[in-house]
């Protein structure tokens, strides 16, 4: 690409460019509104950089192919929306259990079920966290701006590679279809992370924790590199082979959880505005947070002591950030979101009664307006 330059990108387009900049060389997908542009652009862009795009026969197969390609050494991604996200869950769980780095993009639309395919929602916040069976921590990032889609897609790949884990980029239709200015960093300015690899010729235990910092994330060989290792979705020991022994299985299951939960503070990114002296806090994410930001700025302009916490990392949940802000005196916490209170429920859990949590909710495809948030704040006063 040419040197640093600004241009107009659609959110879905910025996701593809960010992924390619991060080193994505494999994409498997299935058409679904409002994420389809991501697949279409990958079909154009990937072969231009020597990568591979494939439109699979269904959503499940796309997620499976992504896992296979990643195990064969490529950085891999898929993209979908609500119904497809539901279908992919089993194989996302496989990626978590088998510790396969990959990125899953969900451009959220209105649900339940087929819902409103072309309209925005944020109703998959909890599904992203809890949609699979069994215990597994998962990293979920949520951009609100098109330039942030670009940088967070790179970040998603970096985290996936560093922690050998699936990472979900939870977008919404507004951000996916919005066009905004993006200033592309110069390739040399990008920070790109790659998975640790085992030392050639060494005895390779693909699930054995090692020493030191990041020792809880074992290196990952690629199929064909000569290590001849085994990968399974069955609970397994350090060698990767199935076990029914609780004393072998429990550390494995705990490790795939703790490698994420123990890095909560490092993983959690958020934007704060006027939170130092706020007596009312607005917590939001994705496109709703843009409306919240406008509301907070307008209210500050007329002297209302309101602050904004925009969550960029949704999971692991930034409870430490919320608790720090709530250590001051908060009269109320307002949570605007395009669902019926999924984030509010989590915020309430973190505050544990320290302040009332008031939801501002829309669910039928209309973006929350700044006026909705302003009204909620004024009702507190």
């Amino acid at each position: 690409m040419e040197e640093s330059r600004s241009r107009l990108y659609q959110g879905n387009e910025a996701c593809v460019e960010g992924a390619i900049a991060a080193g994505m060389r494999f994409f498997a997908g299935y058409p679904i509104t409002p994420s389809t542009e991501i697949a279409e652009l990958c079909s154009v862009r990937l072969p231009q950089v020597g990568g591979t795009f494939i439109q699979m026969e269904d959503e499940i197969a796309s997620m499976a192919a992504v896992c296979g390609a990643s195990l064969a050494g490529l950085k891999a991604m898929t993209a979908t929306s609500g119904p497809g996200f539901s279908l992919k869950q089993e194989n996302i769980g496989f990626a978590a259990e088998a510790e396969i780095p990959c990125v899953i993009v969900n451009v959220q639309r209105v649900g339940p079920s087929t819902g409103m395919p072309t309209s925005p929602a944020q109703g998959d916040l909890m599904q992203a966290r809890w949609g699979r069976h069994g215990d597994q921590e998962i990293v979920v990032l949520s951009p609100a701006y098109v330039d942030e889609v670009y940088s967070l897609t790179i970040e998603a790949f970096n985290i996936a590679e560093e922690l050998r884990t699936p990472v979900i980029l939870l977008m919404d239709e507004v951000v996916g279809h919005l066009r905004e200015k993006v200033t592309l960093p110069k390739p040399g300015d990008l920070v790109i992370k790659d998975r640790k690899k085992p030392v050639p010729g060494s005895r390779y235990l693909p699930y054995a924790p090692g020493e030191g910092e990041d020792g809880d994330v074992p290196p990952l060989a690629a199929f064909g590199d000569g290590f001849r290792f085994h990968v399974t979705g069955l609970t397994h020991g350090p060698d990767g082979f199935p076990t029914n022994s609780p004393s072998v299985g429990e550390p494995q299951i705990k490790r795939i959880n703790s490698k994420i939960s123990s890095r909560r503070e490092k993983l959690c990114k958020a934007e704060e505005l006027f939170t130092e002296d706020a007596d009312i806090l607005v917590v939001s994410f994705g496109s709703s947070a843009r409306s919240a930001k406008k509301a907070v700025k307008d209210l500050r302009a007329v002297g209302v002591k309101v602050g904004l916490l925009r969550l960029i990392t949704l999971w692991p949940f930034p409870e430490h950030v919320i608790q720090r802000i709530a250590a001051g005196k908060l009269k109320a916490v307002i949570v605007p979101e395009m669902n019926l209170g999924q984030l509010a429920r989590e915020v309430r859990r973190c505050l544990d009664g320290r302040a009332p949590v008031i939801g501002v909710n829309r669910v039928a495809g209309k973006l929350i307006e700044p006026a909705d948030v302003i009204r909620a704040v004024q009702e507190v006063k």
Partner: protein
Amino acid sequence: MGSDLTKYLRVEKLPHIWCAGCGHGIVTQAIVRAIDELGLDPAKVTIVSGIGCSSRAPGYMNFDTLHTTHGRAIAFATGVKLARPELKVIVITGDGDAAAIGGNHLIHAARRNIDLTVVCYNNSIYGMTSGQYSPVTPLGSFASTAPYGMVERPFDLCELVMGAGGTFVARSTTYHARHLTNVIKQAIQHKGFSFVDALSQCPTYFGRRNNMKDALAMLNWYKENAVSRDDWAKMPPAERGSKFPIGVFRDEEAPEYCETYRKVIEKAMEEVGAK
């Protein structure tokens, strides 16, 4: 005697989980023997499986091995193959895995003609879950979920894969172990999608419910009912009864998917001046 095959096995992982008399060890041996006779570099062979009795085989095989989710082995294998086309990718699947929950992936991989070798350990029953009927359980047979006899019409998996465009399609049985090895060899050598329907006895859950008390009875049944493809073609339909054909039903050349996509990459790179 051929060469020592244990070098292709993870002998420390034995004994295997299969029941006494199960045919899956014979099919696994046939695959390993085929790899040996072809002289493939074990570091360049990846074996992918789904869920079920058959799909435990890769755990005992000393290659890069991937034991995936139910029905999805072919889709995972598609990702592996596209990422590293130089690898030989062999899929081990069962009849429930390949033809029921994974039927969609089977037909689409055949349609694409991607260079995978799929060996279906076909015992016409769900063994792992103790004997429910599968899409290939013969009409009238008994299963734990067909207590009054099977009422659904079965798939002929070879016909299915040929209908979907598979370019190499063959069938053999555990009784015909040498023949089975040979068709697997041909399948691995074939460039494009290859499918081997490997009939494998399940005395525990199929045989005992269907008047074949042990493995020997089932192997005898294969012996008596299998006829060569050419004999089958000459056989009047009225005489076919419970008999079935074995052999190579299709061996055709067609553009292979990875090679075709390689040309897409070359064209795209040329257009943007990356080459």
